[in-house]
């Protein structure tokens, strides 16, 4: 009777790749908006099962990079290989179908909807019944809804947000909203999870909680994570490899320790006398 003993159901998409194989590769990508070069000739890869951090000072092109991976921007030059296949121009919902989910720097939830409904919304791409069935509600649509609700309840349990299940997210404090957003991304059961500053504006305790959730998602669900974060302590503790951007260029790439001691990184963060 103890449901906790059962194997958890929400997990990463199985895609046949082994841990450590390249999941996504960015090759010589450049992106510009008119005359502004946001990203210049950047290449790096994200391996299956790792936590990959993208860091850099403000305006370094981190979020643009995430938007490129996500399919929101199409780069003018360069290619993106996802699971070994070169990607053509696409829309973000294609990325979702391929197993890429994300959270946003500024929380982008449906403010008037409850936590539960927001996370349920994350399941919408996985629902098979069409709108006609959904309106009928009974029968197959209801059964499907119950199946999805089970997964959502697991996510709610996982993120320890049972107490706000019925609360409209607009009324929640910022830290909890971020958690709900993570929940909605997890509901898509992504292979690759993109987190844009998951700890921005959080206090120490909230950061610790969030770090714990990110680590657990990575370790236990096997989800690959790419994250942008400003808190260096968090980045160095969480990530397996770090890529550093500055003015749209890659200046370093390696393990946290390598990056920490890299002169170019130190200069970019601390500045150099001119």
């Amino acid at each position, binding site marked *: *009777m*103890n449901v906790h*003993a059962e194997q958890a159901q929400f997990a990463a998409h199985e895609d046949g790749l082994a841990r450590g194989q390249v999941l996504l590769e960015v090759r010589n990508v450049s992106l510009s908006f008119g005359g502004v070069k946001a990203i210049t000739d950047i290449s790096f890869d994200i391996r299956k099962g790792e936590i990959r951090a993208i860091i850099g000072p403000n305006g370094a092109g981190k979020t643009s990079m995430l938007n490129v991976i996500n399919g929101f921007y199409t780069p003018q030059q360069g290619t993106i290989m996802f699971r070994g296949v070169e990607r053509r121009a696409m829309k973000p919902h294609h990325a979702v179908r391929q197993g890429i989910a994300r959270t946003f720097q500024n929380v982008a939830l449906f403010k008037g909807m409850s936590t539960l409904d927001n996370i349920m919304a994350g399941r919408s791409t996985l629902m098979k019944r069409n709108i006609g069935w959904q309106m009928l509600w009974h029968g197959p649509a209801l059964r499907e809804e119950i199946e999805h609700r089970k997964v959502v*309840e697991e996510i*709610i349990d996982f993120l320890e947000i*049972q*107490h706000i299940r019925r609360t409209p997210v607009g009324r929640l404090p910022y830290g909890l909203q971020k958690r709900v957003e993570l929940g909605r991304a997890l509901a898509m059961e992504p292979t690759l999870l993109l987190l844009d500053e998951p700890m921005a504006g959080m206090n120490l305790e909230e950061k610790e909680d969030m770090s714990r959730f990110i680590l*657990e998602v990575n*370790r236990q669900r096997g989800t690959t994570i790419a994250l942008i974060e400003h808190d260096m302590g968090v980045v160095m503790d969480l990530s397996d490899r770090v890529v550093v951007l500055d003015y749209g260029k890659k200046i370093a790439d390696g393990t946290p320790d390598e990056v920490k001691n890299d002169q170019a990184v130190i200069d970019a963060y601390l500045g150099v006398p001119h």
Partner: protein
Amino acid sequence: METSPEQEDPRHRAQVRRDRRAAAPDGRNEVLAQDAAELDTFPKHLLLNAERFGDRSAMRHKDFGIWQSWTWKEQRDEIRAFALGLSAMGVRRGDKVAVVGANRPRLYWSIAALQSLSAIPVPVYADAVAEEMAYVLDHAGVRLAVVQDQEQVDKVLSFAEKIPALQTLIYDEPRGLAEYDHARLKSFAEVQEEGRAIMRRDASAAADWEQGIRSASGEDVSIMLYTSGTTGRSKGVMIRAAAAVQAARDTVEFDRLTEKDSVLAYLPLAWVGDHYLNYAQGYVSGFCVNCPESQETVAQDLREIAPTFYFAPPRVFEGLLTMVTIRMEDASRLKKWLFDRCVAHARKYGEAILEGRPVPLVARLVYRIGDFLVYGPLKNVLGLSNIRIAYTAGEAIGEELFSFFRSLGINLKQLYGQTEAFLYITVQADGKVRSDAVGPAAPNVEIRISDAGEVQFKSPGMFGGYYLDEEKTKEALTPDGYVRTGDAGFFDRDGQLRIIDRAKDVGRLNSGALFAPKYIENALKFFPNIKEAVAFGDGRDFCAAFINIDLTAVGNWAERNNIAYASYQELAGHSEVYAMIGRHVDEINLKLSKEPMMAGAQIRRFLILHKELDADDGELTRTQKVRRGFIGDRYLELIEALYDGSAEKYVETEVTYEDGRKGRIRATVRIADAKVYAAPVETARREAAE
């Protein structure tokens, strides 16, 4: 999906109500009386309940948004599997095993499983910091610990090396523990699986287990409850099985609790109140124990379960009233008007109707309408609509607060108890309830007041001594076998006990006037804006106080009055807040001045503390009682400032965050003066002469 069908179906509720009316306690009591001699442990009740209430719910737990439930039979099977697994791990009679965590079915089962092997469960406060927990585990000499989750595993492992007796940890929730070294870790499910494997291999294992329970002695220690440590180190109170069962049986009969009752188990597992009210009474009467989904969802879970028996310390009721008041402030004008009218009517007639006293017919009818429009929906929102009996204890409760809930038709009563008594010492009977007294002696309890004014008692549930502490045991007992409570009190005219304060806290000002700090603090705390207060004055020239504001109430007030603040500290130091608290203190002084005994101890100076008193900093006990001595040392500078006439004082205070790290808070605390009223000399004289 939100609730179990049992909860959602209104027909079921109606059925429960009918059952409750039809329940005839007499027949059942006969059974109990018959078996009383043999039924002297809780596992014996477990076997009995699995027979007589086999298909009734014994335990519910909300998980993944649904109320999961177990019948008495299923509960017995779960406990048996775990007990056999424990037995295979070498747990024997007299072994001590710690139980650490929140109110979860598996932890309650652990307690029963251990008792079924005549081993001794030692519940420990789950929010205790590592050092406190290490002390208890070490002192009790536990061999195993059953813990809830990763957090508790981490905590116990952090000091496990220092406790050589501790061999293995058994955890309930596997989350986050996959990568741990499992040399000393086992999951609850694994141990149960081992137990089930034994039953498959050995057909007689189950029968042997039951035989073991039947032949167990009621003289064995049933549980060891560590006191929360209001003063110094916590002590291990040993409660014998037969005593525990007898005590529980007395109160089950007193309140006519039956298997049709239900409770929400949300109190700390390690506290005597939880063990008694939920576990002991549950096993004796067979009622259903409901475990909330998490600590944060208690209010919602309470509403869904709508228990019939409820216990909460006064501060919970205070919180509820504060919440209701705040919400009504924000309600529309019509609603507010209706609420005020109805509550005013309830205040006038509600208690009389509850107690069955004569009330004019019209007033009764109006009350019915009020019930339909306001009281009913309000009780429903609070989760109190099915309450048959509710208790409060632990602290004094304000008259206003107490009668508010009673006037809504909630049978709220008071009891007075202690860990050493296995809870009940006094209890109020239905219809004989007052806010300023705690009732006459509970069934089969003898109480006397010593010459020094201390309350002493002898009871069926009386403890069997402190574990490994002969000296303290001797101190706690009188030569003729009464237990000293350490509380000062007296019986009033209608035979109810009144508690003034801790006997050793009652002091005198330099003027010779009586100074009972708790009396003053309680009076202050009855204001919704004041969360905590600490009064000083023993051996001083006058009485002074520290005050903690209630962030919810004062925050709301600040919002309505356009007072901006960024933190607790800033709000606490705000001059408007000082002015408001000053008015409260003034009111208290006026009240004190009218009481001849207390008039000398009016508050001359007070300050609002820059931080909330917190158990993590050692300022409160885990049951949220003020640790006066500790606060006296910690804030010595501030106390001196109260008495040396300075208008403000700069202090730095070390605080402990929830994860155990330390930080410092710096603040300049203002000290305010209060007006003192002259004692009504003539009245005092006249009363003294009477």
